[in-house]
Structure formats: C-alpha cells, structure tokens
C-alpha cells in the first residue's frame, strides 16, 4: 500500500530548521553551480526513490481502484469501487473510529511531548540520560509496541493478572476490555506511548540555545514565567512540533498493524478495511481495497497541505 514513505520520518523541517540554515556562511555554496541546481542535485537521489516507489505505487493504486485488472477476464474501467465504498457498512463505520484513532493520540502525544521536553530541559546532569530513554523508544517498531500493549492490557494480560492477584477481579472477563474494544483504548495507548517520545525529541531539538536567549530577554523585560512560556517558548517550538504532529496524524490515520492487532474486525480503521478487502480471496474485491487506499492517501495529502498552509502563517507571524 502507500504507507512506507510515511513511516520513514524525515527530520523535522520547517521554520526552526531554516532559521539555523540561514545563519550558515554563504561559502557553503559550490562555486560556479547555481544554488538552485545544486540543491536539486543534492535532492535528486531522494526524489528519485520517492518518485519511483511512491508515484508508481499511487498510480497502480489509482488504476486498480478504477478497475484496471488485466489478469481478470472481463475487466473494465469504472467508478464502481468508489460508489461501492460509500455504501459499504465497513467503510462507513470506520470513519468515526479512524478520526478518533488519529486525533486523540496526536493531541495527547503533542501535549505530553511538549511538557516532557520542557521538563527535560530543566534537568541538570541527568538530562542526556533521560532524553536518551526517550530516543531509545523511537527504535522500537510499532508492531512490537502493539504486542506489548496486548500482553499488558488484554483481559488475559499482565494488568488483569495483577488485578486478579490483588483480588479486584475474579475472572479475565471481569477486567475491563481495553483491547478489541469499541473505543480503541489499547490502540490509543500504543500510539501515545510510541509518538510522545517522537514529539519530545522534536520539541527538545526546537528548544535550542536561541530560546534561552529569548527567554532571558523576556525575563529582563519583566515577563513572568507563564508569560514567557505562552509568548516566547511555545511560539518558537510550535512550527516544529506542529510539523511532527502532522506526521503523527498522517501515520496514525494511515497505518494498519496497531489497529489490526489491538482493534476489532468491525468497526475497523480505514487502513484495516483496505487490508481486509485487499486480502479477500475474491479478486473482484481488489478495486475497492485500492479505492479505500486512495482515499487514505488523499486525506493524508490534505493534512500535509493544511499543515504547510498553517506553518506558513505561523512563520510569518513569528517574524
């Protein structure tokens, strides 16, 4: 499907990064090669990979969603898959769930991540040690995180056993259903656990030395701690954190392994629905799988566009 490029996260870009870039001396440019061409050359390998794998993948998905299945006798191009999608109860039921699974972890991990970064910044010698723990989490695959949540939160899991040993619950079924539940608690927990450190690292990177100077300046002008936080610190890190949050949203809305492992077969998130159709043994279900994948791609694209729009406005305001 079209997920892998979302999983490999590019380093945080946006105003924070470009501010640092602008300070670099101008002799960074190669003599004789125009700056624009030089940048294009440097980007070419990455763009080539993105172009070949991403664009061919998307083209294939769009073509198949329109019914392009030359391996099946009697195939024809049509919009049937898209029409079928809007009447499919699995798709209709998944919209609310997908929105919930994407929005709640994004907001929670942004709030927790920024808070953690602000606290870690205040730490003395143990700062590197603590931020190291946060970074270690980044290396854990989502799949492993989801399995850990299953072992921890399911009705036969560790918490349930502890609760049984402590005499709170008699049977596994007496423990609240946190996995395979209607709300998606375990999915949200898995994403918050995984994405909070990601946004913490981004916020820590944005809280560079320049922020200290700005805060000191605000302090000398008589700003109280709360005022410094709201008017100086948060505006400086917002563009970078917002960029990270968009990635988190696009990822949580578009990935399937965590909701597949921890969620229900129905209602399931959009990516799980796409996978269910994709894995259907009847190949005529393939166009609808691709139609759902195309819709996910378009939604993710819209999110990035919205971010670029907002980030542009934020950057202008901070100048």
């Amino acid at each position, binding site marked *: 499907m079209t997920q892998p490029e979302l999983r490999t996260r590019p380093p945080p870009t946006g105003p924070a990064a470009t501010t640092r870039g602008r300070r670099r001396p101008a002799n960074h440019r190669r003599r004789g090669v125009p700056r624009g061409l030089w940048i294009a050359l440097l980007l070419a390998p990455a763009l080539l990979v993105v172009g070949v794998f991403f664009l061919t993948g998307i083209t294939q998905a769009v073509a198949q969603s329109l019914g392009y299945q030359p391996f099946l*006798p009697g195939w024809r191009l049509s919009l049937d898959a898209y029409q079928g999608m809007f009447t499919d*109860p699995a798709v209709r039921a998944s919209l609310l769930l997908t929105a919930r699974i994407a929005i709640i972890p994004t907001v929670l991990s942004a709030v927790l991540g920024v808070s953690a970064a602000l606290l870690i910044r205040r730490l003395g010698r143990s700062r590197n040690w603590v931020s190291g723990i946060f970074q270690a989490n980044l290396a854990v695959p989502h799949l492993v995180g989801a399995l850990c949540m299953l072992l921890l939160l399911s009705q036969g899991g560790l918490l349930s056993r502890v609760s049984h040993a402590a005499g709170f619950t008699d049977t596994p079924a007496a423990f609240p259903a946190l996995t395979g539940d*209607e709300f998606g608690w375990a999915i949200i927990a898995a994403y918050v656990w995984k994405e909070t450190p990601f946004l913490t690292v981004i916020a820590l990177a944005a809280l560079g030395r320049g922020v200290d100077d700005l805060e000191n300046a605000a302090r000398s002008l008589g700003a109280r701690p709360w005022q410094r936080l709201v008017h100086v610190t948060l505006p400086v890190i917002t563009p970078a954190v917002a960029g990270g949050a968009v990635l988190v949203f696009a990822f949580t809305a578009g990935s399937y392994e965590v909701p597949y*492992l921890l969620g229900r077969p129905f209602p399931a998130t959009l990516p799980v629905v796409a996978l269910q159709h994709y894995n259907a043994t009847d190949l005529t279900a393939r166009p609808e799988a691709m139609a759902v994948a195309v819709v996910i791609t378009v939604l993710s694209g819209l999110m990035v566009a919205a971010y670029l729009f907002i980030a542009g406005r934020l950057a202008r305001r901070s100048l």
Partner: protein
Amino acid sequence: MRPPRFAHARPARIAALAAALALTVAACTSAGTVTSLTTSGAAAMTSAESDWDAVLAQANGQTVNWYMYGGDDTLNAFVAGYVADQLGKVGVTLNQVKITDTVDAVNKVLGEVQAGRTTDGSVDAIWVNGENFATGVQANLWSCGWDKTLPNSQFVDFTDPAVANDFGIPVKGCEAVWQQADSALVYDSAKLDTADVASMSTLFDWARANPGQFTYPAPPDFTGSMAVRTILYDTIGGPTTLSGPFDETNYTNATAKLWPRLKDIAGSLWRGGQTYPQSQSAVEKLYSDGEINAFFTYGPGAVGDQVDKGLYPASTRQAVLAGGNIGNRSFVAIPANAAHQAAATVLANVLQDPQTQLELLTVKGVYPGIDVTKTSPDVQAQFAAVPVHPSVLPLTALTENAQPELAAEYLTRIEQDWTTNVLQQQ
C-alpha cells in the same frame, strides 16, 4: 505449452513472453524433461525415471523459495530441519519464507505477474489450499500438470475426491497434496464434560449456561470460516444439499436458518458477541489465557504439543460433534512464473515421501496427505506405532465422520454474508 495469460498484454510483452516460451520449449525438448511429462501420467517407467533424473539435475544447486504460513514454531523447526536436510541431499537449498497469511504469497505472485514478470518470479512454491488456490486459478497463476511426475505420487490416492478437488475446484495437476487436516473441537475437560460436546446443540447450551467462554475467529479467517461452516452443516444436516458448484437457490435455502442461529448464540460468546477475535492465533491465546474454554481447530494434532509446552491445561481434550467434522487436504503449488520450478518440484516430492509424512506425524501430529495403505507393510506399521497424545483424538476418530469442504465460491459468500449478517449487526 501454456496459453498467454494476458489478453491485453502489450506487443513487447507478448514478444518477450513468446521468446521465453520458445526458450523453455527448446530447453525442455533438448533435455527431454517437463514437456513430455506433462502430456500424460501413463509414461513408461524408464522414461519417467530418466525424466525425473533430469529434473533432479536441473534442481541441483538451486534454492527453492517456499512461501508458507509461519505461525507454527514446531512446523517451522521441522521444515528448517528435516525437510531442508532431505533437500540438501539432492543439492537443493531451502529458503523458507514465513508469512502470516497465504494470501500474501498469492498477492506477491499476482503483483509480479501484473508487473510483467512472467518468468524468474521470486516465489517458487506455496503451501496452499482452498480459496487461495482458487484465487490463483482465477488469475491463471499456477504451473500445472506436474503432480503425477513426482516419484512419490505413487503413494497418493488420486481417485480420492478430497485429493482430486481442492474445496470444490478440480486440482488438475496444478498442486501436489501434502497434508491432511481434520477439524475438531478443543475443550478443557475440567470445564466441559463429554455430554456438553456431544453435538452443536449441547455445546451451545453449555455456552448459554457459561457465557463468554466460547468463540471463533471472524471469517474470512481460515478457521473461523470452517467453524461457521461446521455450524451450517449441523443446521442443515450435512453438506449434501450444497455439494457441487455454487447454486444461489441452494445457498439461500441452506443459510436461511444459519444466520438467526448464529445471532442467537452470539450473546453467549466471548465479549457477548460484540466482537470476534481477528485470527485463530488470537483464539488460541484466549484459550491458553483461560479466557475461553473451547474452540474449533483445523490442526488437532498440534494440540498435544501445546499441552506439553504448558500453554494449554493438561485437562485439554478433543471431540468430534455429532454432525461430523470438516476435513481437507493442503497442497504445494508452484507459480507458473517461478524461477526455480525444478527445485520446487523436488520439494513437493520430498514432502510426499512416506518418511517425511511419518516424521511430520511424529513431531507435529500432522496427518498424512498420502494414502498410507499404498506404502509398504513396514511403513504402515511405523505409522500405526506413532503414539497419540492423551489430549488428541486418534486419526480414526477424526476421519470416520469427516465431512467434505464446499466449493470455494460458497466459502466466499458465507464469509461475506457472515460479515453482513453477524459481525456488522452487533
């Protein structure tokens, strides 16, 4: 040899395909191998032997990429150990590619064929049956006509309908039988007694009295789909009215009482039937965690192993309900675009070897896909001497009332309608 697979292929692709076919035919005729073998199963013994020698010669030095369900540690160890050793003796290296669902391998082949890779494909062999085999037939993915060329196919009973047909689809030499699977109900005898597991009705009565302790994986999961069909057979008194190819009227009549019955019992299932586990491994985990106390399985022989490992309680037992149990065969198929067809053929032959089948029964409790009565008396005695775990039913009990599978099209419809009528109704 093979018809071109693409009615809409570009001229360049057709030219490439034609060239590849020409090369294959040339190679085959010069070596006197595959082509002559595929034409007839009644080839003279000497020529069959020399043909097989040619396959062995071609396979020597090849690596066979075998895509198979990899969720079973004991089976994985058997494949990586015994099977790989046997292949190594004839110079074939085994690369076992573990997948979570057979459909992944079929999709890989389909993707390659779609991209124009009609030769030199990366999947050489797939452990397959039923709907996934049907998918490959639908898209014309399989290499066919080689099953009777295997020397060990002398032990296969091709007249057995369960071998000649795979879920209602004629095999036509497009896959070679490997395993026999008979379903059974697994239950904890400390929680259910034999009267509870006498029939589907008594099981459901027990479930109503003990809510939340029985469930099945959501179809289209392979085992979940089987569980629903077992309930269907019980509801309509056996599969006879649904034998043969798909028939809409028969289907509607047969399932009319099934959906109300499933909805009726749903409230007494795990989580009140509000949801169902996503997979059979999730169901098995529920059983080992003590959340449920009974489940259907398509691999009864593996249960003893789970008991010995301490994952299942020692009081675990098996039962065949009054209406009988569904049985099937699983096969090894070779994609038509496989890069190492000869090595894959050798793999299929090793898997049909009576010694391999005996070993598999011994270590894993997997029942033979071959007809044991066709082997020598000595080998038959060895099969009979394999001890049966106290938690596992003997093969005779599992096969005496075995019921055939339905046509693959019925399965697909049942799975779709289960989703609409049961899962999405909660």
